[in-house]
């Protein structure tokens, strides 16, 4: 028995987001670490500093497209389909009191001071991932556009803000790259009970066992409401998990390699 966790729309969106994020990281970091020897070589992979910048803008457009599609769908659910549970409740990404409670309980469980919390559809760390991306989109995307079109933005912003934009774009980029390639990778894929990966974002499916184990509150809620069969799906085509594994291996390898380059730069090359 398998249940749908992510529909095809969100799976594809995550795929595009993932590709554009990797592209942005690999074309952006050389500029941020231009004083470190690997930067020139990495930029050369994209044809040098200038064309790396062009590739960066192409991936940026992809990512902005992702955000637009996501927000558009959210608005559609909210205003057209009147799905108010987008705003509050277990199906909503909105941070809620139970997230604080669950986080504290989770920390207690880490320290063997209490039982594991019974999570629902979205956990607090998943919400953090989501909002971190949302915040990052605003800050990195906004500052990126300022840097892309400085002459246009100079009509509404003083030039000194370009300095802020440049700095914040780089630091937020570093934060995003560092977070996604370590914390997100661990939380979603590399932690021992998921290792080496959790294919759910690619297949969209969880088994009944997984749902019961990992999100008991959701399982109980749906069973009690007799809504489990609403999300019941057949198994994914055989090629999907295989492709997922290949994609994830590539993405995780690239991500960890980038983390290695950054750590090398920060710890050794700049001292």
């Amino acid at each position, binding site marked *: 028995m398998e249940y749908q966790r992510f529909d095809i729309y969100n799976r594809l969106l995550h795929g595009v987001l993932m590709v554009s994020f990797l592209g942005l990281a690999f074309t952006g970091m*050389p*500029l*941020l670490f*231009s*004083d470190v020897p690997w*930067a*020139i070589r990495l*930029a050369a992979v994209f044809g*040098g*500093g*200038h064309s*790396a*910048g062009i590739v960066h803008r192409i991936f940026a457009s992809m990512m902005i497209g992702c955000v637009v599609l996501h927000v558009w769908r959210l608005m559609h659910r909210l205003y057209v389909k009147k799905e108010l549970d987008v705003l509050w409740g277990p199906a909503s990404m909105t941070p809620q009191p139970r997230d604080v409670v669950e986080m504290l309980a989770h*920390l207690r*469980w*880490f*320290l*063997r001071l209490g*039982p*594991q919390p*019974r999570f629902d559809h979205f956990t607090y*760390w998943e919400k953090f991932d989501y909002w*971190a991306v949302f915040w990052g989109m605003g800050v990195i995307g906004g500052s990126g556009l300022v*840097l892309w079109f*400085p*002459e*246009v933005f*100079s*009509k509404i*912003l*003083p*030039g*000194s*803000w*370009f*300095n*802020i934009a*440049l*700095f*914040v774009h780089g*630091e*937020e980029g*570093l*934060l995003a790259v*560092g*977070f996604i390639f*370590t*914390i997100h990778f*661990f*939380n979603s894929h590399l*932690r*021992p*009970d998921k290792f080496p990966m959790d294919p759910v974002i690619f297949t969209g499916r969880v088994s009944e066992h997984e749902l*019961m*184990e990992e999100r*008991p509150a959701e399982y109980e809620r749906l069973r009690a409401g007799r809504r489990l069969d609403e999300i019941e799906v057949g198994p994914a085509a055989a090629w999907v998990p295989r492709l997922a594994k290949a994609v994830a291996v590539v993405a995780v390898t690239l991500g960890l390699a980038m983390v290695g380059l950054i750590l090398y730069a920060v710890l050794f090359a700049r001292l």
Partner: protein
Amino acid sequence: MRPTRFTTAVLFAACLTASTALAQKPAASAVPKPPTNDDCLACHGDPSAAGSNGRSVAVLPDKFGASVHGQAGIACVDCHADLARTTDFPHAEKLAPVACAKCHDAAAAKYDTSVHAEARRASTQSVAAACKDCHGTHEIRSSKDPDSATYHLNLPATCGHCHGNAEIIRRGRIAIGNVVAQFQDSIHGQALSRSGLTVAPNCKDCHNAHDIKRKTDAASTVFRATIPATCGRCHEGVQRRYLTGVHGEALAKGRPDAPVCVNCHSAHQIQRTEGASWKSQVTAECGSCHPESNRTYRDTFHGQETQLGFMRVATCADCHGAHDIFPKRDVRSTVSAAREVSTCKKCHPGANPSFAQYDPHADRHNRARDPLLFYASKFMEVLLIGVFAFFGIHTALWASRAVKPGLGQSSRRDDGRRTQE
């Protein structure tokens, strides 16, 4: 008259025995008459004529005849003056050195002040250049003659006999090393060798020909403070702009660290200024005196891009100018409040006064200069440290919790217990 093979052979044999036979030969005439060129060439005109040590003593009549001295009808004994009164032939092998100064007194006087003459005076073993090392001997041609060793386009190779010779560079302790190799790829070297431009400078145009002096000698054309004037012989307009700018002004005030032409352009490896490699080198060069500006430049977009090798982005000179650089407060400065917008517009056509408020040397550690950036950087610092600290600990705890009693199994056992609870 050209000697026959027979007379050549006879005279050559005579030459070889000259040292023992010298005293026994009687004088042919009572009034000694200097030997004519033909007399000399009777022996020396033979291409195989050699001294007792095997060294060629041949003087090819054609070559000498075409030389500037041959053309002028100068007699052999005018230079080899010690042979003028010799009547016994073959003559002694060891001759007095030729005194070029007898005729070329002005050039010789200049040469006497040169680093080459100084080296020769200091040591009899010196291989420093004397007249013949550059000009040759019997085949000397006018420096206007394309076949001359001192012809404008040939001079670098002539100097290169010594200054491109590793052994001589080592023995002479010539600090700059193989300067000919450095010069030949420079814009001046290429102009000479590839473009054949006789207006392009060769060695002597900067160093002079006869009175070459050390660069530490205040009388030298390449003495630090004199360099702008030396380069200015050709680059007059640049020299004038340089002298009005801060660097020229500092030089005029006698500041020892004031940069002159060679500090940015180098002396022998001068490149085209459009080239990417020169642009990146000169930025580092500016930074050697302006380390703070270099650091803050490297920390902002233009400096980051150029560090990656994309040199179409602004480097120092694109904003500050090259030769006539002025302080920002000076209205003549390209980065003064009055002119900065037009400077930005060179690359950013849509620039306006607001645009020009961008600080290309922003320093996030400098609250007075960039207050907004300073606080933004503090905020980002807290954010980054906060996020990574919290999730670092979170991850470490989670990993240790999940890993404890044996992989995989553990969490399921835990979960099993939990679902029963």
